[in-house]
């Protein structure tokens, strides 16, 4: 092209193109005969091409091609050196995609054949005319351009099709797979080369979306969605199948369906009547129990207003819990009697809030509480009865106390009067008879006292009269009271108390009772010549009083039942020594009423030690008293 033609061409093309064309086509000349090389160069330059270099060896050609990336290489087939032009051309084209035009002096078959293999872009045979040279070069450049465009197009195609997440398969009219993209390989778990040429196997019909069960190589089967369109492949009509793997989606859908099903089943299996009401009191959902209660189908109830269905009214009820829940956004409950169903209902409503915290509707649960109400009624009646019985029992304790003691005291007084010879003198025989009678009355009196005592304590009617007492003094007094009893059996009765006084809050009469009981027990169970000792110590805010004897002792198996009511331990006792088996039970209760504890240690034939501990602090005594009485009352009520 000469300059005029170039300018004309430029004016026709866009600026971009002009920029490209302004750059002259660069040609690399590979020719080992230097004169020829120069000549060719000059010719090319005259033709308008840019020839910056001329090289003479194949190696140099490859090197220069790599460095400069010329637009075209003009290669002499015959070159000096190990490599000839054909080899170099092959490399240059393959590696750098630069078109090569062969320059050759002769064209023998063999050489031409070899040259053809390298896919040259043209030949020029020496000697040549300039216009021929130009034509071959232009054609080569054109061909190179077209090939580049094709290559780019293929690359784009490849990018789009292979990168697609959906599987793309082309199937011809006979159902044979012609093309498979990467995603399709993944979908079927097989390589393209295995699939191409095989029968597709699935029916292909244009336009519809079909679901396929896909058997996958090396994985569990899946589900794919297929869309088929008609297309052309290699000039023939074919089908384009787009496949989307929906296995995961399907699984998720199944899960949701199952969950909804489970919820539905649960909802319907609840025996309470459940309904959901919206802001306008319209029923939006009901469970089976609800529908059954009203003997309607669920769909008949949905859309109805709740108060019409429930109460047959035109207005919501004034104390409607649903209304309350709507207003206050809080749950509400209500108990009512439903005349139509003939049952008591416990209704509870809970508001349902949307994501803004506004109430959209509420869940209304109605529970049949008829049984519960009946049970409550029965409980109330039982309680009333219980109160009655309790009162009766308290009256009994008061009356019995009086009614039992009165005749006993009269009998005792009568016998005493006789023995004191007030009505007249008595003889020895009479004295004897009366003395025996007196012993027995006294014994009876003691038994009655014990019975009344425990009855009083257990019915909570025993009040402790608490005062501050020096316990050491109390022990001294009590021991001296028991001296005669001990002397009767020739036992030594001793006490050991600290020098200084120990003041403690207690009911002196009751504690005396406790000590007398323990001491007389010890005396009872110790044979002649033995001893009984009472000791008192202070430790850790407690006062410990022990009554120790050298008596028969208590076996290990008997110890747990020691403080039980009416348990006695077999031994020979005189008439005056008989007991009710209540003594220790009373002792334990009295000690505990003071906030204290009682413990026993014993060894058979060695002796026994009873130890009571009483708290020193006033507050704990008072506290324990109040709780003890409450506990006693409660346990008595429970026991009855």
């Amino acid at each position, binding site marked *: 092209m000469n300059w005029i033609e170039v300018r004309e061409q430029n004016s026709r093309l866009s600026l971009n193109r002009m920029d490209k064309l302004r750059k002259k086509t660069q040609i690399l000349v590979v020719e080992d005969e230097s004169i020829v090389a120069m000549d060719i160069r000059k010719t090319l330059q005259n033709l308008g091409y840019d020839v910056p270099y001329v090289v003479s060896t194949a190696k140099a050609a490859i090197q220069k091609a790599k460095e400069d990336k010329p637009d075209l290489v003009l290669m002499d087939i015959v070159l000096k050196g190990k490599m000839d032009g054909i080899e170099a051309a092959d490399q240059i084209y393959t590696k750098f995609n630069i078109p090569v035009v062969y320059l050759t002096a002769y064209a023998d078959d063999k050489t031409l054949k070899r040259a053809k293999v390298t896919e040259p872009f043209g030949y020029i045979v020496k000697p040549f005319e300039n216009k021929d040279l130009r034509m071959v070069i232009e054609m080569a450049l054109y061909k190179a351009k077209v090939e580049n465009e094709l290559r780019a197009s293929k690359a784009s195609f490849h990018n789009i099709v292979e990168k697609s997440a959906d599987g793309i398969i082309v199937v011809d009219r006979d159902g044979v797979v012609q093309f498979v993209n990467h995603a399709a390989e993944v979908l079927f778990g097989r390589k393209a080369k295995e699939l191409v040429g095989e029968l597709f196997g699935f029916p292909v019909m244009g336009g519809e979306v079909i679901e396929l069960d896909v058997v996958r190589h090396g994985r569990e089967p899946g589900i794919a969605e297929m869309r088929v369109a008609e297309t052309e492949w290699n000039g023939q009509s074919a089908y384009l199948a787009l496949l989307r793997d929906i296995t995961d989606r399907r699984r998720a859908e199944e899960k949701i369906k199952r969950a909804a099903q489970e919820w539905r089943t649960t909802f319907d299996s609840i025996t309470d009547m459940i309904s959901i009401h919206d802001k306008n009191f319209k029923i939006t959902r009901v469970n089976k129990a609800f529908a059954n209660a009203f003997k309607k189908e669920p769909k008949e109830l949905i859309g109805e207003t709740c108060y019409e269905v429930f109460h047959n009214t035109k207005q919501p009820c004034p104390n409607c819990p649903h209304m309350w829940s709507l207003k206050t956004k809080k749950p509400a409950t209500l108990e009512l009697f439903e005349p139509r169903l003939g049952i008591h209902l416990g209704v509870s409503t809970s508001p349902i809030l949307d994501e803004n915290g506004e109430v959209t509707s509420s869940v209304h649960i109605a529970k049949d509480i008829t049984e519960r109400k009946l049970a409550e009624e029965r409980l109330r009646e039982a309680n009333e009865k219980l109160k009655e019985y309790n009162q009766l029992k308290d009256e009994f304790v008061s009356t019995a106390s009086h009614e039992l003691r*009165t*005749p006993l005291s*009269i009998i005792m*007084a009568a016998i005493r*009067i006789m023995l*004191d010879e*007030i009505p007249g003198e008595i003889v020895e025989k009479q004295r004897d008879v009366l003395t025996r009678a007196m012993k027995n009355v006294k014994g009876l009196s003691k038994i009655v006292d014990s019975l009344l005592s425990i009855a009083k304590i257990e019915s909570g009617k025993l009040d402790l009269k608490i005062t501050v007492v020096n316990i050491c003094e109390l022990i001294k007094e009590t021991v001296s009271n028991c001296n005669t009893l001990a002397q009767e059996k020739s036992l030594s009765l001793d006490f050991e108390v600290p020098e200084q006084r120990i003041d403690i809050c207690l009911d002196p009469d009751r504690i005396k009772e406790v000590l007398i009981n323990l001491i007389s027990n010890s005396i009872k169970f110790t044979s002649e010549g033995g001893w009984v000792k009472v000791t008192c110590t202070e430790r850790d805010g407690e006062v410990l009083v022990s009554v120790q004897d050298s008596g028969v002792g208590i076996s290990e198996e008997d110890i747990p039942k020691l403080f039980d009511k009416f348990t006695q331990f077999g031994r020979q006792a005189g008439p005056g020594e008989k007991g009710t088996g209540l003594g220790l039970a009373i002792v334990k209760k009295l000690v505990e009423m003071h906030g204290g504890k009682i413990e026993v240690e014993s060894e058979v034939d060695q002796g026994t030690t009873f130890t009571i501990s009483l708290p020193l602090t006033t507050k704990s005594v008072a506290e324990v008293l109040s709780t003890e009485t409450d506990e006693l009352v409660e346990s008595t009520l429970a026991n009855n």
Partner: protein
Amino acid sequence: MDNKKILIVDNEKDALFMLEQELAARGYSVIAADNGNDALSLAKSERPDLIILDIWMPGMGGPEVAAKLREDP
């Protein structure tokens, strides 16, 4: 111990009897009443030095009698 007058009150006649026996043997002068009203009238008329009063009596109980007695010195 020289002839003090004691008024004993108890609805139980046997109890009154026994108590009377014992007190008389010890040298006291004893008057007995088996109900609250008699007790009050006897107290007024006899003016005893000591009154032994049973608590639990039908009708006017011991405490009631005591209260009434205190009203009238």
